[in-house]
């Protein structure tokens, strides 16, 4: 990361909101992602870490351009330096950008696993897939099974294979570890590490911060629909003093091995976001300025942060 490379994917000020019709014609917007910044470089794993229900999975859909129809997207995304618009998203998904979904529910329950891993493109990459299955340690009969017949570990590997079969340069893994034993989770994350080591860029969307430390190169802390801080994973190992944002520090202290210190309050609801910094209502260092205006993204000690204290 030391050498200044061009980011494979850069997201600037991404906002996603849904217009909901609540009772009749009353319309309201729910902003689920607000002014999000993220850069991903080839060969690295960036973990987007935040607590459950903070809209992380929608980030993946936004990058791929598969948000529901009632979603509005603002902001800019660049892939290999070029603007990633809707047409380009359509061309790139499944070829350059691949998603590894959460669970076996993302596989068609009525289609055999082999066919699903092959994908819809013709000609079917059968030989390549057989090879891939073998490399991932899946027995030959796997291709004839239906998704419900897969064990947890097998399912994980089949899902990973759908991304590897594409030669994609950017892989987005959406919550790959929940419901797994530590051993399984480590094995799954090792697969992503291997991908990154071959030069692919991996976005690891997870709420398992602990595991993210171990495998990610950088960690983007996600709070209420935005990334409050992006920092090298080593900073998180070093402790709160190396971190930049009060929420990151709070997150660190909330980990069991660091004393389980929870901060008060809850994340703001998407329909009721504060005006300034999204963390202001819970921040111990909150000032009037924080309440009024959103802090800009700044580079601080090799990381990026949105906080007036670091200004």
């Amino acid at each position, binding site marked *: 990361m030391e050498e200044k490379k061009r980011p494979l994917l850069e997201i600037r000020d991404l906002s996603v909101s849904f217009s909901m019709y609540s009772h009749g014609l009353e319309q309201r917007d729910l902003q689920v992602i607000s002014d999000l910044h993220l850069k991903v470089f080839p060969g690295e794993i960036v973990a987007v870490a935040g607590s459950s229900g903070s809209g992380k999975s929608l980030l993946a*859909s936004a990058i791929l351009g598969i948000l529901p129809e009632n979603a509005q997207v603002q902001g800019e995304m660049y892939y290999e330096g070029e603007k990633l618009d809707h047409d380009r998203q359509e061309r790139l998904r499944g070829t350059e950008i691949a998603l590894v979904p959460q669970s076996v529910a993302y596989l068609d*329950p009525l289609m055999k696993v082999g066919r699903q891993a092959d994908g*819809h493109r013709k000609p079917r990459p059968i030989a390549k897939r057989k090879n891939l299955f073998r490399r991932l340690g899946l027995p030959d009969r796997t291709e004839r099974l239906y998704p419900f017949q897969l064990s947890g570990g097998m399912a994980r590997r089949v899902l990973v294979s759908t991304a590897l079969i594409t030669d994609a340069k950017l892989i987005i893994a959406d919550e790959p570890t929940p419901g797994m034993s530590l051993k399984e989770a480590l094995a799954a994350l090792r697969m992503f590490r291997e991908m990154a080591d071959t030069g692919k860029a991996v976005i690891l969307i997870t709420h398992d911060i602990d595991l993210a430390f171990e495998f990610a190169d950088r960690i983007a802390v996600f709070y209420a629909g935005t990334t409050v801080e992006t920092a090298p994973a080593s900073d998180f190992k070093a402790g709160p003093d190396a971190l930049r944002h009060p929420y990151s520090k709070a997150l660190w202290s909330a980990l069991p091995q660091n004393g389980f210190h929870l901060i008060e309050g809850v994340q703001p609801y998407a329909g009721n976001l504060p005006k300034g910094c999204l963390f202001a209502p819970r921040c111990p260092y909150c000032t009037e300025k924080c309440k009024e205006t959103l802090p800009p993204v700044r580079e601080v000690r090799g990381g990026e942060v949105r906080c007036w204290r670091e200004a």
Partner: protein
Amino acid sequence: MKGTLGRFVRVLAGYGIKMLSLLLAVTILSFALVCASPVDPVQQYILGLGTAVSPEQRVEIEDYWGGDKPPVQRYLGWLSEVLRGNLGESSIYRRPVADVIAQRFLNSLALMLCAWALAGLIGFTLGCVMGTYRDRWPDRILKKLCYVLSAVPTFWVGLVFLLFFSVWLGWFPVGFSSPIGVLSEDVSLWQRLHHLILPALTLGMMSFPNIALHTRQKLIDVLNSEYVLFARARGEGKWTVLRRHGLRGTLLPAMTLQFASFAELFGGSVLAENVFSYPGLGSAASAAGLNGDVPLLLGVTLFSALFVCVGNLIANLLYRVVDPQIREGDKE
């Protein structure tokens, strides 16, 4: 594979037993109803003959119906005759009921098959269109159409078709499945089809809204599923999604529903056949009821129950084929 086959046989056997119990109950029910009726089958038959009945004939018929014996014995006697294949003799057609049913069922089968395929095809296609364009204008219009059509009585649709296509446009004959005065062997396939089209259209009109609305819901469920989201994330376009996942998830359930609706199909055919004077089982059933032809009425009732049961059996088996989770069990 052996386990799958074994399970299949077990299911088949289980349903077979239930089917037999239901059919047996249908014989009891229908015999009881006929006994309760003021029509005396013996009397009706002799009346129908008009001319003098020989004492032998009379004894034979009275024997068949059990004469003055108590109802249970009469039922058992009748049942044993039925099981031996003797359904009695129809008083309106002057032929064994089994023959009448066999011949007319072929006509009805042609009609129902056409209507069934038509309804399935139209219903499934419209259902797919509605599901794809959910809540946009094609969906709204078609949904309204389906609701209105299911409020329209079958026989009236038949009357309107008859008025429009036969009386005004003169494209189709007003009735009868083969032209009058032509031997049935000489009737060409085209002539047969000519007489089949309107009744089949009528019957098909009645049953497609159901299948369309069902398919719409199924398709919407599929399109909202996580696996379709993932398929889109992998670059599948709208049509690829529809072909790869939509059809897979909707076609077999639609067929299952189609087989499970044999009862409605048969009931509808009674009306369609009456409007178009189509010589099938349905028109025989109402004729039998109106003219007190007890053996024919019983025969058609039993046969219709058998028909419905077979449909349900196919639907049940299909249902197992559809879902790999039921088909293969979770033995892995």
